[in-house]
């Protein structure tokens, strides 16, 4: 089943030198799977996520042939209707929890507010839900964390709180934009485990935006590789190291590796042809290799 279907998504910004196309014709379907979106800065990966959530600010413009959530168009909805979808049906986790949490509200109040905004209900119900969510993201002492202010928790804890907050209304899709880049490796594993379990247990669709190829290869089911606003290659995550597009290969090769020391790292030679050209699509055995 397809949760989200996007065809020919374009995001453009007017500049003094003409229009700048941040996203140039992106098409993909998201099922109940972990979909990785990989690319370098400026590749349009974050902008794709923002466009789906209707978070592209004017003068930026979003156009698409199709952008449907469960068969219902969510392209350029009026802000009031988009707000009902954002958070309740599609949630987003950002890179740095420091900038996403309100510094003058306790963690508990914020999660409860997020929940009641979408689900309504009594205060004590929201409180139970918030505690349940904090437990779901492996916070050992949820009562104490509920009463804490954002500056009193660590980065990894903050990111888990963000995830708890985003998951409180039970969204169908979670868009995570570099959710672990600001975290240390040891904390990273925990946060990923939590998201992984949520996809499996709740049947959520996850769009995982990251610049970290190895991480995406290990964590996701399917990967889209973006370059200059386009998807240049899509393939099953487990096959990432057999990628066929020279850009994907170049990115993988330019990573230093502990197991294979080399004197010089191969440098990516960018080619103009990559900007256009067709998407290399791996013929997958199933449409959604992670299973539905």
């Amino acid at each position: 089943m397809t949760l989200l279907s996007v065809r020919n998504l374009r995001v453009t910004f007017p500049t003094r030198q003409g229009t700048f196309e941040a996203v140039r014709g992106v098409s993909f379907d998201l099922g109940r799977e972990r979909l990785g979106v990989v690319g370098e800065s400026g590749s349009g990966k974050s902008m794709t996520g923002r466009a789906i959530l209707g978070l592209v600010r004017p003068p930026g413009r979003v156009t698409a042939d199709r952008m449907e959530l469960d068969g219902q168009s969510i392209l350029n909805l009026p802000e009031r209707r988009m707000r009902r979808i954002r958070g309740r049906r599609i949630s987003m986790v950002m890179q740095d929890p420091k900038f996403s949490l309100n510094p003058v509200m306790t963690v508990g109040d914020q999660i409860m507010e997020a929940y009641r905004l979408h689900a309504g209900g009594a205060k004590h119900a929201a409180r139970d839900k918030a505690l349940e969510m904090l437990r779901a993201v492996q916070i050992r002492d949820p009562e104490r964390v509920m009463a804490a202010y954002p500056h009193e928790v660590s980065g990894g804890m903050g990111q888990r709180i963000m995830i708890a907050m985003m998951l409180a209304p039970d969204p169908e899709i979670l868009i995570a934009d570099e959710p672990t880049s600001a975290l240390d490796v040891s904390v990273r594993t925990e946060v990923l485990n939590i998201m992984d379990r949520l996809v499996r247990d709740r049947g959520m669709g996850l769009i995982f935006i990251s610049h970290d190829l190895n991480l995406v290869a290990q964590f996701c089911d399917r990967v889209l590789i973006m370059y200059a606003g386009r998807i240049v290659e899509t393939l099953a995550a487990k096959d990432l190291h057999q990628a066929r597009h020279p850009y994907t290969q170049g990115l993988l090769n330019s990573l230093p590796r502990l197991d294979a020391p080399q004197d010089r790292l191969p440098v990516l030679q960018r080619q103009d042809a990559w900007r256009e050209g067709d998407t290399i699509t791996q013929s997958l055995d199933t449409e959604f290799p992670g299973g539905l």
Partner: protein
Amino acid sequence: MLTVENLNVWFGHPPDRVDAVQDASFTVPQGESFGLVGESGSGKSTILRAIAGLIDTWSGTIAVAGKPQSARKRDRAFFKTVQMVFQDPYASLHPRHSVDAVLSETLRLQGMDDIDRRIARLLDDVGLGRGFCFRYPHQLSGGQRQRVAIARALAAEPRLLLLDEPTSALDVSVQAEILNLLADLRAEHGLTYVMVSHDLAVVGHMCDRLAVMQAGRIVEVMGVTALRQGTAQQEYTRQLIAASRGYARA
């Protein structure tokens, strides 16, 4: 080249005093590339800043080229020997200074003559070329900015370069270019590196030896072969290596 003995660094005053580094000792011989790794808050960058003289609340010994340094003031000879490249190339260049202004000020401060010719050579050295001379930081990409920052550090013709996560703010393809550049410069100028990073693969690629830090203390100093083979002495180091190998689904 660099000797650090019983280094303690703290911030603030009691009772709020935070001991960021405790009893750290290591030596880096001339020409070596030495790595400092650890998670955020482990004190690795703090050590680097104390060596550079950007933090003055420390005790212990820091000796550069055999000469002990004081916490308060560094002399001209120190700035000619030791230079630093910072983590975030977006924060380490003055937003209103062009490349030309940055480099010529640096060269003048270091008492160099023949400024224009030196600027051209520095830009060639870091692979930018003269065309970049009059650009402002906002006209440069992240990798280009970091090259300018490296050119600025090289302007003094230092012998010891302190690298504070020089590629962590960059894309992997740009990281490869910068790491290659740093390796070339070391070979060419016979530089000594002390490099801080949270990325074990980067340190494994760049360094000969490394110190692993946890909560302000050095837990282990090891050679890069031991790192690659995963034969660390300490449990913490082994965990770190395992975690850096990637994500294994629980």
